[in-house]
């Protein structure tokens, strides 16, 4: 116990730096996947059937295979197969490759949530807007959008909380996020070696951050509770 207290300042400093990278991957993924998911959702609902089937095929593949494999393929494929490692060898390259894999993967999950949200708004809402002389964009922004958001908040909250934990998968390509930072003390880093508690301690970071997210998303859900 005394030893842990002694190691604490060094470990926390390292974990903080790692968690910063975790947070960066989390937010970049959200910022990229939220709009990309909408584009994919429109593709999967397109009236042009080749586009619709192609989009659904991609979504099926992305959702049907492990994110870890997607990370490995995206990171190693250019260098090993195309003989041109466009990601480079540094931390920046690993981050960009991780971000691409995460954004694409999460966009596919989000697109299905959006599709459910859009198709879940009764057709009568749109028709009521039409007979009142509203334009298509007025109907979307003034009538259906908020109803859609209300429907997607609970499933999106679920995905967002999963994303916080999924960022740890980027460890597989040695992205220096918090798991990587905790693991470093096993092999030895900054005079500490053979310590496993830092790795376990990373769970506290996830737990606290997800606690905050749960409260915030719960508030958003409550805010939209004024209508049914």
């Amino acid at each position, binding site marked *: 116990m005394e030893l842990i207290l002694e190691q604490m300042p060094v470990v926390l400093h390292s974990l903080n730096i790692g968690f910063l990278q975790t947070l960066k991957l989390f937010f970049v993924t959200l910022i990229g996947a939220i709009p990309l998911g909408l584009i994919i959702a429109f593709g999967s609902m397109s009236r042009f059937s080749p586009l619709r089937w192609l989009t659904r095929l991609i979504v099926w593949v992305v959702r049907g295979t492990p994110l870890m494999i997607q990370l490995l393929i995206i990171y190693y494929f250019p260098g090993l197969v195309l003989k041109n490692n466009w990601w480079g060898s540094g931390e920046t390259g690993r981050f960009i490759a991780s971000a691409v894999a995460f954004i694409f993967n999460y966009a596919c999950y989000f697109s299905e949530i959006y599709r459910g949200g859009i198709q879940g708004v009764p057709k009568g809402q749109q028709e009521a807007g*039409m007979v009142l002389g509203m334009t298509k964009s007025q109907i979307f922004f003034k009538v259906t959008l908020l109803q859609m958001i209300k429907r997607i908040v609970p499933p999106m909250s679920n995905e967002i909380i999963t994303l916080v934990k999924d960022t740890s998968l980027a460890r597989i390509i040695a992205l220096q996020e918090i798991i990587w930072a905790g693991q470093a003390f096993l092999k030895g880093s900054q005079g500490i070696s053979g310590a496993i508690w830092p790795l376990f301690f990373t769970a506290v970071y996830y737990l606290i951050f997800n606690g905050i997210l749960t409260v915030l998303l719960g508030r958003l859900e409550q805010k939209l509770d004024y209508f049914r």
Partner: protein
Amino acid sequence: MAILEVHNIEKHFGATRVLEDISFSLEQGQALAIIGSSGSGKTTLLRCLNFLETPDQGQIVVQGKTLFDAADPDTQRESEIRKKRLHFGMVFQSFNLFPQYTALQNVTLASQLLAKEQPDFKANKANILADIEVHGKELLAQMGLADRSGHYPHQLSGGQQQRVAIARALALKPDILCFDEPTSALDPELTGEVLKVIRSLADQKTTMIIVTHEMAFARDVADQIIFMDGGVIVEQGDPHQVIEHPREERTKQFLARYAEN
């Protein structure tokens, strides 16, 4: 001159013919009731008038102006259809109120959006919006809902929701107000309050088309009645004559089935 003339409307869904050779006319201030069993094409006819469906054949003429002609693509331009819809108001069977808006906001939303398109909107914004709100409140009061203007749809009973929907349709001052089975989604004890409102609109000489299963109501309120079956008009005329002394065999059968229930 008739306010509405419908000529030879025909509509198919795939290979199924749902409307065939539908023609009728309606005078200003009159109420027309359309009766018939489910699947007879009544609702599709109303949806054609509101441009929610496009007829394959026929013309729709309002106040002498051809709004729709299946043979003339110029009358089917998307950009103009939006304005043409405003000649008609529509009250849906399932109300279709906007759940995120209060009763008053439901009534005023479309008027506000239309007002924004007027060139003088910016200059008189406050006055225009105030007028819209006053008008909305008047309509709700007329529906007996003065004390419900701040309520959201889920806080209202079905009958109250349908009355808000009627106020919402009236807010845009349509030439012809259409009702698609306005009481079919309501419990019997709530039907009366909606019918009462429609009756008072008829007394004020609102031009209306009412698709309904309430035979007694249709007979008492309508100036003209149409009986539809299998997508065609089987019989039309004076309500008392059609309901009490139908000429056609199919009308007799339909009314007899109704009397049994």
